[in-house]
C-alpha cells in the first residue's frame, strides 16, 4: 500500500486529506509542521507528500528544500491557500502546485496520476 505524508498546520485540513486519500486506498501519515514531517521521513519511506506553504516556524519552501535534500525522488504536491508561491522559485522543486479548494477533484486526480 502506497504511503502519503500530509503536512498542514490546520488540523481540519489534515483530517480532510487523510480521509480523502484513505478513501482512495492509501496509507496516510499526517504532520502539523516541517520538523515533524522531516522526523516522519526518518521512519517511513513515503511515496508522496502534500505540503502546505504557510506554516509557523519552518515554512513550506524551507521544508520542501529539506525534504528534497533527504529524498530527491519523493514527489511533493504543494497544496496552499495561496497562489503566489507558484512564483516563488523555492516552490519549483515541487512536482505539482494545487490551490486549496473545497472541491477535492483536482487534488485527487493529481495524486492518482503520480501514484497510479
Amino acid at each position: 500500500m502506497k504511503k502519503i505524508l500530509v503536512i498542514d498546520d490546520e488540523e481540519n485540513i489534515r483530517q480532510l486529506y487523510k480521509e480523502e486519500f484513505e478513501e482512495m486506498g492509501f496509507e496516510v501519515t499526517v504532520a502539523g509542521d516541517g520538523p515533524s514531517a522531516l522526523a516522519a521521513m526518518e521512519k517511513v519511506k513515503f511515496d508522496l507528500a502534500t505540503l502546505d506553504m504557510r506554516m509557523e516556524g519552518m515554512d513550506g519552501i524551507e521544508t520542501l528544500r529539506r525534504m528534497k535534500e533527504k529524498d530527491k525522488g519523493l514527489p511533493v504536491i504543494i497544496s496552499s491557500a495561496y497562489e503566489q508561491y507558484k512564483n516563488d522559485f523555492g516552490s519549483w522543486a515541487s512536482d505539482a502546485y494545487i490551490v486549496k479548494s473545497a472541491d477535492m477533484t483536482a487534488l485527487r486526480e493529481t495524486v492518482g496520476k503520480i501514484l497510479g
Partner: protein
Amino acid sequence: MKTTEKTELQLLSEISRISNSSIELQEKLQRIVEAVTRGMEKDGASLFLIDRSGRNVYLAAAIGLNQESVGKLSFPLGQGIAGWVAEQKVPLALEDPFSDPRFQYVPETGIERFKSLAAAPILDGENCLGVIFVLSAAVWHITSSDITLVTTTANQISGVIRSAQLLRNVQQRLSELGTIHEISMAMTSTLDLSQLLSLIAKNSAQALHAEGCSIRLLKLPETQSLETAPAYSLYGEGVKDLDARIGESLADMAIQGRQPVLIGSSSPQTQLPLPAGGSAISVPLLFHERVIGVITVYNKQGGQSFAEDDLQFLSTIAGGAATAVENAAMYERMQDLALKAETRARELSMLFDISSALSSTLNLDRLLRIILTSVTMGGTGLGFNRAMLLLTNERSNFLQGMMGVGPINWDEAGKAWSEATGKHTNLMEWIRTGDLFERRDVAMNALARGIRMPLDPKEGVLALTVLEKRPYNIIDASASPLVGRKLRELLGVNSFAAVPLIAKDRVLGVIVVDNMFTQRPITDRDMRFLATFASQSSLAIENAIIHTNLETLTRDIRTMHKQLVHSEKMAALGTMMAEIAHEIRNPLVSIGGFTRRLAKKVRNEDTKRYIDIIMSEVTRLEGIINDNLQYIKEAPAQRGEEDLNAAVEDILTLYAEELLQKNIRVEKSLDAAISPLLIDVAQMRQAIINLVTNAMEAMESGGVLTIRTYRIPGSGQVAVEIGDTGVGVTPQAMESMFNPYYTTKQRGTGLGLPITRRIITAHGGTIEVGRRDEGGAVFTIKLPYMTRKPAGP
C-alpha cells in the same frame, strides 16, 4: 575885364547852371564837356571818372572822341595820361602827347585827330574823382593861364560830381532802405524756410541790380539729427549754370575766410571761370558768430562790376537774412519736434492700451490673438492689413506658425471691412466683450499654422529674423534672395516685414505683417513701432509660456501624486484583502471538504438538499475569493524607486569575508546615473546574489569578480554586468543553464539561474551569458530604465 577872364567866367557860370539843372549826372557831364570845348575855344574835351573800385579811371563823357568809347575806355590808375593825372593829382599840359612816354594810344577813341591836350585832376579835397581833358586839333602852346582855367573848371566839375554823387547816395540809401524794409517785412511775414530763402534771393538780386542770387544753408549739427537737408535757393534763371559751376567754390571761400568775397573782371581770382565782364559777391550768413550759410549775387546789370558799396549792402542784407533764416529753421525744427512728440505720444498711448490688453490674460492662445489683433487693428492698433505669429520650438529647433489674423483674399477683406466699420475702436472693450476671441479669420489662421521650418539660415528671411535677432522689411520679395518662392506664394504679397519676438535675449518667435490690401508701404516708422510693440509682446508671451508650463507641471504633479496615493492605497488594500481571502480559504476548504464527505454518507433526502445548499454556497464563496485574488494579483508588485547600486554594495559587504577567503578580488564600477530605478529590490537582490554566488563557485582557486552598472546610451536601459575569471561556460551549458534543475555543481538545487531569469523577466528585462576572451563567464542583465515619473505623452 580880359577876354580870358570873361571866357572863364562864362564857362564857370555855365557849369554852375548845368550843375543846378535837374538832369542826370551822365547828361550833365556831357553838357560840361561841350561847355568846356566851347568855353576854351578848342576842338574837344573828355572827362574820366574813377570807378567804384577806386582802381580805374573810365571815360564818362567826351566831345571830339568816338562816342562808342564812352563807358568802355578805362585805364588803371597810373597808366595812360588819364591814369597818371588821376594818380599824381596834378595838371598836365602836353603840346605833343604822342611823343610822351605816359601816353597810351587807343585807336578806337579817334584821339589821333588831336595834336595837343591839357588835363587836370578833378579833386574833392585829397580825393581824386576823375580827370578833365581839353583837346586841340592844332598844336596848342599851352599857357599857365590855360592850365589855371582847366584846373578851375575841374574844381567846378568836382562840385557837380560831388553833389550828383550825394544825390545818388541818398537815392541809393533810400532804395536800399526800401529793399531792406521789404526784406525784413518778408522775413517777419513768413516762417517757411524755403519761401523765405527765395524771397531774400529775389530781393537781394533786385536791390543790387544783379542777374541772379543764390543762397546756400549749411547742414548744421543740430539740424542733422532732424534730417533736414541743406537748403538752397536760387533767383535768376540766367545764372543757374553759373551758380552750379562756381557757387560752391565761392561759398567755400566766404565760409573759410568768414569774410565777404568780391570777384570781378579786374580781380585776380581768375581761377573761377567767371564770364568776361562778370562779377560776383559772396557773403557768409553769420548768426552769433556761426556761419549758417552763404548768399551770392552774380553779374551786375549794365556790364558793370560789383563794387565795395554793393558788398556793404549785401552784408547788411546777409545780417538780417541770417537772423530770419535761423528763426525759420528754428521754427521748422520746433514744428518737427512737436510733430515727433505728438507721434510719439500717440504711439505711447497705443502701446499703453496694448500693454493693458496684453496683461489681461495669461492664456497663450488668447494672448496671441490680442497681439495679432493689436497689429492689425486701426485706431488704437498698428494698422497692418494682416499679421501672423510664429513661435520657435527650442527642443526641435523649428519655427512653427501659431496664428494668423486678417483676410486671406480680397473677398474676405471686403466683407471684413464692411462688417468692421464703426465696430470696436478700442482694444480693451473688444477684449471685455469677448468678441475678440470668437473664431474668425479661419483661412488666414490655417495658412499661418501651415508654416513650419527648421531654424536654418538656408530657410530664408523668417529663420534669419530669429537667428540674427533683427527685423527685416522686405520691399520687393521677388527680387530678394532671402524670400523663397514657397513663402512668396504662401503670403501672396511682394512686400512684408518680419520682426523677432525677443525676451531676455531669447528669440521666442516672429511676427510677420503685410499690407496686402491697402498696398501701403511699410515705413521705417512702422518698423520702429513694430519693434517696440514686439518687445512688449515678447515679455507677455514669455510670461504666458512660463505660466502654461507651470500649470502643466502642477497638473502633472497633482496627477502623479494622485496615482501614487492610489497605487499605494491599492497595494495596501490588496495586501489586506489577500490576507483575508487566504485566511477565509482554509476554513472554506474544511467546510466544503467535510460537507462533501458528509454528502456521500447521507441517505436522507432533506439532509442531502441542505448539504447541497452548503456545498454550492461554499463554491460561490470560493469563486468570489478567487475573483478577488485574481484582481489583486494584477496590482503592482512591491516595486519602488530603489538604489540598485546600494543593493550591490550590500551584497558585496555580505560576501566580503567569503570572497577574501576564496582569494577573489572585486573590481566594481557603479554608475550613479542608474538610480533611482523602479524595481522590487528584494527580488533584484536575490537575482544578483545568485549570480555572485555562481561566480564565486566558478572561481574555487581565486580570481577577479567584476561588477559594473551603467546606462546603455540611447536605449532607455540600464545594465548590470557580473563577470568572473573562472572555468567559463561551454556552448551547451549556455543554452541550458537557465532551465530549472540544470546544474554542473555537486551541490545546489539548480534553481539559482532560472530564478534569476524569472526575476529579471518579471521586471521586463533580459539576461544573457557570454564567454570572456580572457576566460571566465560574464552575465549581463538589462533592465528598462524606469522611474515613477509618468511616461511622456
